């Protein structure tokens, strides 16, 4: 399997990562180099093998459903590049 320029533009869009037009072709080559290298995985017999879902076998822990932190909008917005009155500021989303 390999990618072409349209695929690179599409996945960049999915990843919300702007890519300059002159970077598309080099990225096609870089990704194809990686995909050619990982293609060796196709030779492994994986019939009847379960995919790993937990690296160390353990039961998912549950906790009581109650609020344990939060309620501090000032701390939450303190690192925002743009904030007003404890709200995040974004470009207009709805016309």
């Amino acid at each position, binding site marked *: *399997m390999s*990618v072409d320029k349209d*695929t*690179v533009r599409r*996945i*960049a*869009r*999915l*990843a*919300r*990562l*702007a*890519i300059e037009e002159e970077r598309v072709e080099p*990225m096609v080559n*870089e*990704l194809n*180099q*990686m995909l050619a*290298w*990982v293609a*060796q*995985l*196709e030779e*492994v017999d*994986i019939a009847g*093998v*379960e*995919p*790993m*879902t937990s*690296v*160390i076998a*353990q039961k*998912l*822990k549950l*906790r009581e459903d109650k609020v344990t932190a939060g309620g*501090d909008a000032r*701390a*939450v*917005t*303190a*690192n*925002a*590049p*743009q904030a007003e009155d404890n709200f*995040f500021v*974004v*470009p*207009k*989303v709805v016309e």
Partner: protein
Amino acid sequence: MSLPATPTEFTLADARDAVAAKKISSRELTGAFVKAIEAGRSLNAFVTETPEKAFAMADASDARIAKGDVRPLEGLPLAIKDLFCTKGVRTTAGSHILSNFIPPYESTVTQNLWDAGAVLLGKTNMDEFAMGSSNETSWFKPVISPWRAKGSNEHFVPGGSSGGSATSVAANMCLAATGTDTGGSIRQPAAVTGTVGLKPTYGRCSRWGIVAFASSLDQAGPMTRTVRDAAILLKQMASVDALDSTSVDVPVPDYEAAVNSGVKGLRIGIPKEYRVDGAPPEIDALWQKGAEWLKAQGAEIVEVSLPHTKYALPAYYIVAPAEASSNLARYDGVRYGHRAEGVRDVIELYEKSRAEGFGAEVRRRILIGTYVLSAGYYDAYYTRAQKIRTLIKRDFEQAFERCDALLTPATPGPAFAIGAKTADPVAMYLNDVFTVTVNLAGLPGIAVPAGLTPDGLPLGLQIIGKAFDEATVLRAGRAIEQAANFTAKPEKWWGV
């Protein structure tokens, strides 16, 4: 106890005992390291230095010591990889996108260290989001290794991604440091800088407050000058944590007590698949020497097989980017981090902020990860890689039926010159060929300095253990350390 004349040369154990015995104050010790960090700025090991905070913490420790209230790491100055969130102290993950981020909370691992009395010297440089094996992908420029080849002035890499931590330990700019290891990022830099690096079992240390790269692989661990120091630091870093549901509720043993129990009667496996073509002959020679050292101390050497070893690295380069593409979706230019100027709408805000904020290696991995998770390719890549991961883990389980721990080389070669491998990503990835299997299987592994190349550059050996058996890993690591008697230090060419 005979102490080195210079406090910066103390081991963590030396310093702990000297501070507790009031032979040196924490302020005095901290001052020596603050000076060493200033003198070592040309190595670029630190992204942020925190001398004022360090002295305040040292004074608080000295006050406790005066009262006889001494905690396990009381007054001991440490360097912290800039991937651990530190409350009120900038935490960048080596990235432009987080270059102004000041966490309003503390990571569990670092909180554990402060609760044990440790002192923060500063935050160490690293590959951006821990993606790299040479510390060359940092937004804050590469770290320079204190080691140079004999008769050469060329700058070498300190390995990565915990390159700043490895350098600060090797160049005596801290007593010890924290690192994180997703595919080898503690053990590989430790090996090429002549230091000790331990990646614990997945779940041993809480991941809460550590900037996420690949959540099923990431694990924090100690980087130190001796195996005993690694035992001391791990004991304090490890904990079960309500804030990380994958942290495991198992007792944390007294590792320091286990370190010197020797290897008599242990069975040490030699996995034949770790002999790779094209590796320099000194790697194989050192590996054989390591086996002889352990045998001479009473261990039994057995050959074992890990048949899926060659598939570990390609499987990793599907799983890790897939998880990274998901984890790094949070950087949106809205809630924290870099934000692009002059955009028309919110989509362009995301796309431009991320393109400007992430470096080339991170962008490449996000795109690979997005591709292997995208509709129509998920099973062919991601599910297949996770099945191969099951096989790799099974290989280890079968090998451990015949032995207690494994001995392998830590890296396929010594450190290389800065810029030597940046053109070919796959060649760079091969640095992790001996370490990455351990992350895929969630196991503990330690890199211990074991020898020098003919050029005078450090090489390490790796011990891999069963899940949650860090004690045996440390015991065998100590046996290697003792036999190797690695006393070489980099010649001090910086800061003069």
